[in-house]
């Protein structure tokens, strides 16, 4: 009886040892790959940082207003952020490749799905970034136009435009990732409303005389005397 237990135990131990022996090299391979990946990712990060400095990425994001947002959120600058993101993504990719070397069943599938997901993630980030730039530009433009046309509540106009564009951007990004697709529908409706609002602003600016006259009729006390045009000509 004891012999059986011993032999079974030794067999099991042998099998375990064999399994471990088989696994260890793979683990080693995985660790090596991970190490290599870390080095590569670091290199890529450094190179990318250089590139971004060259294309003045920070300034671009400053224009977009992204920098301000990040500083408010106590996050590092956008180029730094991007570098770190790329670093982690690259390293993670290598780790995944290493994991596949482990030969764990089901891993491959998971990895491939993750790798398919990656471009969409990057696209979403890109959309988000572009959206930020657009929101900043459009809102600033609207602000200036509204101020120069002497429209009341110019700031509110500008801010709401910014919010709408950002919202659209976020929903688009989310849709690309594949999260909350229903929400996108809702977002779209809101965007549609925003476009309408934008048109209204455009027409308001273009027909500001008419709008002024309408407002004069509605708020005669405030607007009446002040709305008269100057005879001054600048040139």
């Amino acid at each position, binding site marked *: 009886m004891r012999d059986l237990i011993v032999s079974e135990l030794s067999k099991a131990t042998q099998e375990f040892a064999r399994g471990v022996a088989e696994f260890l090299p793979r683990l080693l391979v995985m660790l090596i790959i991970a190490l290599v990946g870390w080095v590569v990712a670091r290199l890529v990060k450094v190179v990318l940082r250089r590139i971004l*400095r060259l294309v*003045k990425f*920070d*300034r671009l994001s*400053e*224009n977009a207003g992204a*920098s301000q947002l990040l500083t408010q959120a106590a996050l590092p*600058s956008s180029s730094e952020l991007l570098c770190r993101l790329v670093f982690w993504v690259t390293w993670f990719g290598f780790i995944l490749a290493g994991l596949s070397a482990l030969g764990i069943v089901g891993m491959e599938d998971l990895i491939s799905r993750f790798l398919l997901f990656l471009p969409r993630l990057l696209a979403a980030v890109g959309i988000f970034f572009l959206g930020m730039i657009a929101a900043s*530009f459009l809102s*600033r*433009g609207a*602000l*200036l*136009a509204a*101020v*120069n*046309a*002497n429209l009341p509540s*110019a*700031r509110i106009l500008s801010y709401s435009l910014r919010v709408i564009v950002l919202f659209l951007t976020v929903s688009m990004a989310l849709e690309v990732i594949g999260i909350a697709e229903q929400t996108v529908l809702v977002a779209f409706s809101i965007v549609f409303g925003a476009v309408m609002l934008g048109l209204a602003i455009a027409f308001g600016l273009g027909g500001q005389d008419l709008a002024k006259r309408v407002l004069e009729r509605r708020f005669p006390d405030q607007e009446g005397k*002040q*709305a*008269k*045009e*100057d*005879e*001054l*000509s*600048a*040139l």
Partner: protein
Amino acid sequence: MAEESILSDDLLRQLISVGEVDILVGLPTHNHAKTVAHIAQMIRVGLVKYFPRERTAIFNADAASRDGTSDLVKAASISDAREPSALQSLRTLHCISARLPGTPHKGTALQAIVAAADLLRARVCAVVTPETTSMTPEWIDRLVRPVYRDSIDLVTPVYRRHAFDGILITNLLYPVTRALYGKRMREPSPGDFAFSERMGAYLMGQDAWRQELGQSGAEFCFASAAIAAGYRLQQSFLGAKERAVNHSTDLVLAMRQTLRALFWSLDEYYPAWSGVTQSEPVPTLGSEYEVTFEPMRVNRKRLHEMFRAGVNDLGPVLASILTAPTLEELKRCANTADATIPYSDDLWATTIYEFAASYHRTVISRDHIIQALVPLYRGRVHTFLEQCRGASAQDLEQNIEVLCQTFERLRPNLLAIWTKPEGGS
């Protein structure tokens, strides 16, 4: 080539039949039916009266007018003029008319006029704006003669204006041109001017200039190109500048056009103006400064309002453009309890210079930078009007002179911030 799109087949045919001319008068129009007939007649009388032996042609570059402007130009003939019948032309007087393609831009019209002058080998090309109702035939003589007889390259006008007409020029364009380019040119963005064949050829050869000209606000490009390239300048006193009563001036559009041209030229001609140390007068034919004081309706309160609203609402935008101390002072200016805005000469000059530098560095979208200046300009107008309340012509001139000297004094500041290294973050 851009030229191919400006010169249609029909225009080319007309240029061929005219051949070579000594004097070309360009008339860029866009829906100017109310005033253009008078202008065309004045041009013809001027040419026949003062240059009867020269080969002359009038070129109406019409940017898709829909009110029959080009027909009116063709129809105006000398026999309608109120001149004595002793006026006789020895030669055929040509009138070329072209409808320009594309969007109606004054810039395309000017481009076509310069190209036509080049092809016709005109010794002088004069450009006349179709808006002035006070034009007389003598204007042609005063614009063309210095170029034709005295080898001047660019003749800019001097008008008798209303004291508060053209504040953008007296408070911005003139001081900046004077301080940075070193030339005391009263009208650096003229509607009526004349240039020589040599200068025309030079301008045609500058690709950047040609592209820029295709936009609007192009007149300033002429002046700045001439100054930067060292051409001979002269000013001629023309007379009163009056426009049609219903002439509308959209301030934002005017500023966008003119300032875009101004800032572009500062970028383009930096090597030329960075070395200038002081300003010199431009030789002037006739009086240099005349002013009228008819009563004019001005809504000062509105100016004040828009200035205050602008400074406050545009805070974040201005923060990207101006330095912190300047913005501080500006805010204080805007939010005073007084009825008057203390927008001093110094602060104004500093504002303009910082805007110019920011434009150069493109801190934010360039068009937005210009738009942000509009409310500040309104504030300056308010101050200027207060300054000149009850002033005589001499006082007015003195005020402008002081302003110009301020600009000249603060010039080094611009040079300092212009070459500031890129701000990283």
